[in-house]
Every structure is written in C-alpha cells, then in structure tokens.
C-alpha cells in the first residue's frame, strides 16, 4: 500500500489526489507530471489512488428501494398517457416496420446506425426507448458503467445488428452498434470526430457520441476497440490508463 496507517501523509498527498481527480490548474498539472517522472515513489502513490478510485467506482449499488410515485390525479394522468403512448407506439410500429426493415437491409450499417443514434440522441433524456436487461448487455456495458455511462436503450434489428445507447451523468449520449459481420471501413468523407468504426472477430463495430468532447470520445473509442480486439492481458493496462485519464479529460458538454 502506498500509505500506511501509522505514518503521516506524504507532503504532496493532497496535490497528488487532486491530480488524480483532474482538479489541478494546468501549471500545477505540469509540475506534478514532472515530479511523477522523477519520483517512482510518487508514481506508486498515484497508482494506489487511481486503483482505489477504480474500486470505489465499481462498487455495486446494492438493493435500492422503489422510487415513490405520486398517487391520485397525476398517476391517473400517467396511466392515461401510458395507454395512449402504447397505442401510438403499436400503431407506429405497424406502420413503420416495413420501412425500418427495408432501411436496415438495403441501407448500410453506417446509415442505419447513424439514424438509430440520431433517434436515441434526440429522444427526451427522461424517456428512454427501452430498459436494457443486464443479461443482454455486452461486456462493453460494464466497462462503460465504470466510467459513469449507463445503458438506457437497446435494440436488435432483424438482421442481427445490436445497438446499445448510454447516457452520461452530464447528459452526453454514446451509442455502440455491433454488426454480426465485418463492415466496410469508413470513407474519408465519413470520418467525424465523434464517430469511430472498426472490425474485430468477424464483427463490425461503430461508436457514435453526441455532446461528448473529442478527447473524451477518443479515449473511450480506443479502449473499446482494444477491448474487442486485444487479448485480456493487453487490455488491463489500457483500462488503468483510461481510468486515470478519464477524470482529467474535459467533461461532457450536453
């Protein structure tokens, strides 16, 4: 352990913690980075802090009591609204299903994914399209949850394309799209800062974000790509680096 119960904290302990949290001013960050390069002990202490933060963030929520609901009139309004909404969704599904299926089969994976992301990103934050069943989530889901990105939407197309939508604490939206087959690489004119695509293990992947700074997106995209492509022993250092860099990156803008 980097810090013992019966010892005084190191002189730079507070600053080191603030560095791990991304709370230092740029000049202080640079000074601390230099100190870390020169001092293996300080670097070891930083690793201890980051490790602790990772474990804290991974703590399970435990049993959560039900959210109270308002009784009387608001509830009856909600029931009416829910009934009407269900009717609208069924009617829309019947009407739009042929179009959606056509789009999915004749359109490209990219086009279908962008359309699905657009729908997910522009839907009201408080109205997720569906609740993700934990068992149905990909391994990526647990990794993103550790970064505070919660899955709130999942869809599977008739052709087996899986889409999962995540929302961050500040409202940014990220969606992962998985095709059951390898897909064509993105053309140069299709490359935008918060869109990443790759093939791995015979599957095609697309990651799309809205409201997320480019640097933050690139961190996630790089890690998810490694997670789906690299052996586990190569992923672990990347996970540690991601957790370390994540807090110091610019937060979501949404």
């Amino acid at each position, binding site marked *: 352990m980097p810090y013992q119960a019966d010892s005084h904290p190191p002189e730079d302990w507070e600053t080191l913690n*603030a560095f791990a949290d991304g709370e230092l001013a740029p000049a202080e960050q640079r000074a601390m980075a230099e100190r870390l390069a020169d001092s293996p002990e300080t670097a070891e202490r930083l690793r201890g802090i980051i490790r602790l933060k990772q474990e*804290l*963030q991974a703590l399970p929520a435990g049993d959560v009591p039900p*959210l109270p609901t*308002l009784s009387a009139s608001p509830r009856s309004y909600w029931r009416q*609204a829910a009934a009407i909404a269900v009717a609208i969704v069924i009617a829309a599904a019947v009407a739009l299903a042929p179009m959606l299926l056509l789009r999915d089969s004749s359109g490209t994976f990219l086009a279908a994914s962008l359309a699905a992301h657009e729908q997910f990103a522009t839907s009201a934050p*408080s109205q997720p399209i569906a609740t993700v069943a934990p068992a149905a989530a990909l391994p990526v889901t647990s990794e993103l949850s550790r970064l505070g990105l919660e899955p709130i939407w999942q869809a599977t197309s008739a052709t087996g394309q899986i889409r999962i939508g995540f929302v961050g604490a500040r409202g940014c939206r990220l969606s992962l799209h998985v095709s059951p087959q390898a897909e064509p690489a993105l053309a140069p004119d299709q490359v935008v800062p918060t869109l990443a695509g790759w093939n791995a293990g015979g599957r095609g992947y697309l990651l799309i974000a809205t409201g997320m700074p480019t640097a933050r997106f690139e961190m996630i995209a790089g890690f998810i790509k490694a997670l789906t492509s690299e052996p586990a022993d190569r992923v672990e250092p990347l996970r540690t680096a991601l957790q370390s860099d994540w807090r110091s990156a610019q937060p979501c803008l949404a």
Partner: protein
Amino acid sequence: MWRDGRKAAARNARLEREWARLYRYACALTRDRERAADAAQEAALRVLTARSEPADDPAYRRWLYSILRNLLIDQGRRQQREQGTPAPEPADWRFDERAISAITVRQALEQLPVAMKEVVVLVDLDGFSYAEAAALIGVPAGTVMSRLSRARAMLLAIIGGANIRVLPVRHAVSG
C-alpha cells in the same frame, strides 16, 4: 390535463435516473439503510411535487442532493434532541465476480467518519467536481480537497492495516 400527466411522467423518469445514486448518498450520510430509504423517499416526493426544477442536469443533480442533505440535517437535529444517533446497520455482502475487491473497499468505506465518506461518495462514486461537492456541503473547495485526500489515505490505511489487498478486476474480452 394531458400536459400535467406528461410532465409528471417526465419528472418521475428524470428522478429515476438519479434514484440509486441518491439512495447511496443517503446511506453514506446516515449509515442506516432504513433511515436512508425513508429520507430518500421523502426527498423524492419533495422533488416530484416541487413547482419547478432546474432544467440542466448538473444543476438538477445538485438540487436533488441538497434537498436530501438538508432533510437529513433537519432530521438529525430533531433525532439528536429526541433519542440520539441510531446504531449503524451491518451491511450485507454479496459475492459476485468481483466480490473480493468490492468487499474490501466497501468495508473500509463503512469505517470512515460520515464527513469523509460523504466527499468520497460525492466525488468518486457520483462524479461531482470539488467545486460542486463544496457548494453542496457548504464548505470551501480546498476543504473538499483536503477532506478527500485524508479520506483516501484512511481508506488505504484501513485496507492495508487489515492486511487486505484489492484484487484485480477481471473482465471477459468480447470477440
């Protein structure tokens, strides 16, 4: 009527997204799950019946947490006058794939004084910045920085002192 019902549903769904974190914060402040559940539910009712709520999500979260915090402070004052502080409730442990690391850290977290545990929960678990946590607690940001660093030192000392080591988290790699 329709607009009121839709607004109530939207409010409910928005609160639901924060609900687990809000309850965890209540647990951190009370060390008593039953009392935490009562307080979180009372706070939720206040939120759902408030005339208005902050539009942007960070402000909404701060508002939510401050309602709960103020409520617990009021209850604490009342309870101190009436019967003193309740005894902490023993936690129930679950053994899943990362049970060992979760248990060691959680055990250590339970041993922290409430003020320290609060900043750990706000910053590490709930993602508040130092400034946001400071505004919520009503202390300078420097106090949060200091309190958090001491809390982490104490956590590491507890884990180290108990001769417990945090084990690596293993995850499967998708194909």
